[in-house]
């Protein structure tokens, strides 16, 4: 009796094994890509946004879609026998040491062939050190610290613009708006939170202010978790700047907006970074956010001039039930760049992918960003075409207003006084 059971067990086990093997043999193989994001912890909601962007990108690469994105019309990666991409997610909790250890784990245990993500620049820093040590390509499209591409790393590539580019954009915008409206701008005030992100923006903004010939009349830094900013705003009012440039996260952006209104701080224009475009900002300040200008790499209203943006935005909304945010749109880029490189390399070997990445040349019409394309600088590995756009909040909506020739809406300038607004 017992031997009979054992033999039945053995036979069925073999059958199952055989079936799985044959099923695997028929399916094109999958290629694993590691994605490190802050999926829990205090910026988990941003991490989720990034995750969704990357997931949608992989869906489009793996399936058949009638979109002008790279590899959208074919299933999987054609030159690798239609191999599908699979994202393996890892949680960093936003801590640099986890960025390192999770990247190492993904590479050594999960056998991923490339890494994307990290969002926070400090985490990207340690994660990319791990890929550099283990010689695995890393394509980043969501961290904006300029230092990341100043290290001369061989395996690290960045698709999106960094803070120095964003800072330069804002000054270019000031020059353009001066020409357009004929209103002279003389001085700027710099306001920034004091972690790496804000202080970097402050540093580059000061540098570009000099280059573009504007006088910096105030240079104010503050901790992002401040609960009262009356004295900071007081300093700004005293300095009487024409323009306020503000680099913030979200809670401080809300606090400052309320304090600006309360103390009636009305410069000619307020141009900002990051915090003012997070999904939670507008619901918190409503109409008080109007007329503020923010840097962005993406805006859904660009769909008027670039239908692809609308199509992708639609897919995103259908899948997740929310509008595609800027963070999701940024993370959306990296899987395409990697898939395109692997397709041209016809290989998933690290050295081959890196070689292919160096010859990446994706034209602008195959992307959802307002750039000329994607092409990496041979030394720094920064995308040389990456630029930002500027959006302005008008009627409690983000509309793209700069560069003027590509923007669907007109900028409202100067900033109307707080008192007497409807």
């Amino acid at each position, binding site marked *: 009796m017992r031997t009979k059971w054992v033999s039945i067990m053995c036979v069925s086990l073999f059958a199952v094994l055989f079936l799985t093997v044959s099923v695997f043999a028929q399916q094109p193989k999958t290629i694993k890509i590691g994605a490190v994001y802050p*999926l*829990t912890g205090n910026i*988990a909601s941003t*991490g*989720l946004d990034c*995750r969704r962007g990357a997931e949608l990108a992989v869906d489009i690469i793996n399936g058949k879609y009638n979109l002008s994105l790279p590899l959208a019309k074919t299933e999987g990666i054609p030159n690798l026998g239609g191999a599908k991409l699979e994202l*393996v*997610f*890892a*949680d960093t*909790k936003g*801590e*640099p*040491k*986890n960025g*390192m*250890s*999770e990247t*190492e*784990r993904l590479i*050594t*245990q999960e056998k991923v062939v490339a890494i994307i993500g990290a969002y926070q620049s*400090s985490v990207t*820093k*340690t994660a990319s*050190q791990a890929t*550099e*040590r283990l010689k695995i390509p890393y394509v980043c499209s969501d961290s904006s*610290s300029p*230092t990341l591409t100043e*290290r001369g790393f061989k395996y690290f590539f960045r698709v999106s613009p960094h803070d120095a580019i964003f800072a330069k954009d804002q000054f270019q915008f000031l020059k353009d708006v001066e020409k357009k409206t004929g209103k002279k701008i003389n001085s700027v005030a710099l306001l920034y939170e*004091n*972690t*790496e992100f*804000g*202080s*970097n923006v402050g540093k580059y903004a000061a540098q570009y202010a000099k280059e573009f010939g504007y006088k910096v009349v105030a240079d104010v*830094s503050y*901790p992002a978790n401040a609960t009262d900013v009356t004295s900071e705003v007081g300093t700004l009012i005293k300095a009487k700047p024409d323009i306020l440039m503000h680099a913030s996260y979200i809670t401080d952006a809300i606090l400052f907006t309320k304090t600006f209104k309360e103390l009636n701080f009305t410069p000619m224009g307020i141009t900002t970074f990051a915090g003012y475009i997070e999904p939670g900002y507008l619901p918190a300040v409503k109409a008080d956010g109007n007329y503020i200008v923010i840097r962005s790499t993406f805006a859904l209203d660009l769909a008027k001039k670039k239908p692809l943006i609308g199509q992708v935005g639609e897919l995103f909304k259908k899948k997740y039930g929310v509008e595609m945010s800027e963070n999701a749109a940024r993370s959306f880029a990296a899987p395409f760049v990697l898939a395109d490189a692997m397709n041209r390399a016809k290989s998933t070997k690290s050295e081959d992918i890196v070689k292919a990445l160096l010859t990446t040349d994706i034209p602008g019409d195959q992307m959802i960003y307002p750039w000329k394309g994607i092409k990496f600088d041979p030394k720094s590995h920064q995308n040389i075409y990456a630029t930002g756009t500027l959006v302005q909040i008008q009627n409690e909506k983000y509309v793209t207003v700069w560069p003027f020739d590509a923007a669907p809406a007109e900028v409202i300038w100067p900033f109307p006084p707080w008192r007497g607004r409807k």
Partner: protein
Amino acid sequence: MQNVMTKQFSYIGIALILAIIFPLVVTNTAVQHVAILFFMFAMMAVAWNIMGGYAGMFSFGQVAFFGIGAYTSSFLLISYQVNPWIGMIAGGLVAAFVAAAIGYPCSDLRGHYFAIASIAFGEIVRIHFNNWKLVGAAEGLSLPMLDGGFKDFMFHSSKLPYYYIMLAFLIIALIVCYLISTSKMGYYFRAIKESHDVAKVLGINVVWYRLIAIMVSAFLTAMAGTFYAQYVLYIDPESVMLLPISIQLVLISMLGGAGSVMGPVIGALVLIPLSEFTRIWLGHRGTGIDMLIYGFLITLISMYQPKGVWGFFTNMGKRAK
């Protein structure tokens, strides 16, 4: 008594042999990383224990020493190409000096007041580093990738050297703690912990011995800081000076059993793998369930084993007899 001692030593011997063999058997680098973190936090908790568990100074500012250690060696390496091993000693000395400078004026603070002062100290140091341009301010310091090897305190291809170095550091800390606890000084510390005034009346130089405890603790913690910098190769105030690290050290020591040599090690053995593995297994779902489990277990232990896990073991041992 003799018997108990030899028994304890044989347990420690077995644990040591296991620790040495472990990474040779388990080659999974993710697990090795967790083990390295375990040693690192255990070492810092042992250092905390000298101050908190023995001398009764509940420090919530320990992370400042960790950060000072990390920053000193990294800064010296980047700006003056000083070897990290020498940098580590320098970091320890700087931390001990700072500890003395802050410990002296605080030498009359007791209980809660000391804890509050230590939080303030940790935060002041963090804010200062966050704005100090010379050491990279908020941007932090990125360590250069040296060739690698024991001389450079940097290893690129394998985690084993980091593992053994950190294990050695932990053993050093344990030996220091053991020597203190069995010496006269250890008894002075306990006396101070029980009652400041009684200790004073007994003729113990309270200020002096408290300073010694703080300085030894700071030196050891700073060593771990240098190790962290050499291991992760990037430091900023957000990752090496944040209050939660201090709290974690207190938690580890209390959970394991403060005031015993091995208690903090046991605490770290429970808490560090717990938090790391729950994140690795469950974190990627983004549901935060790992934090829930972590918190639940801490609550359980503190409800049913307020003396710490080490207390649980010693109780078991007594009952068995």
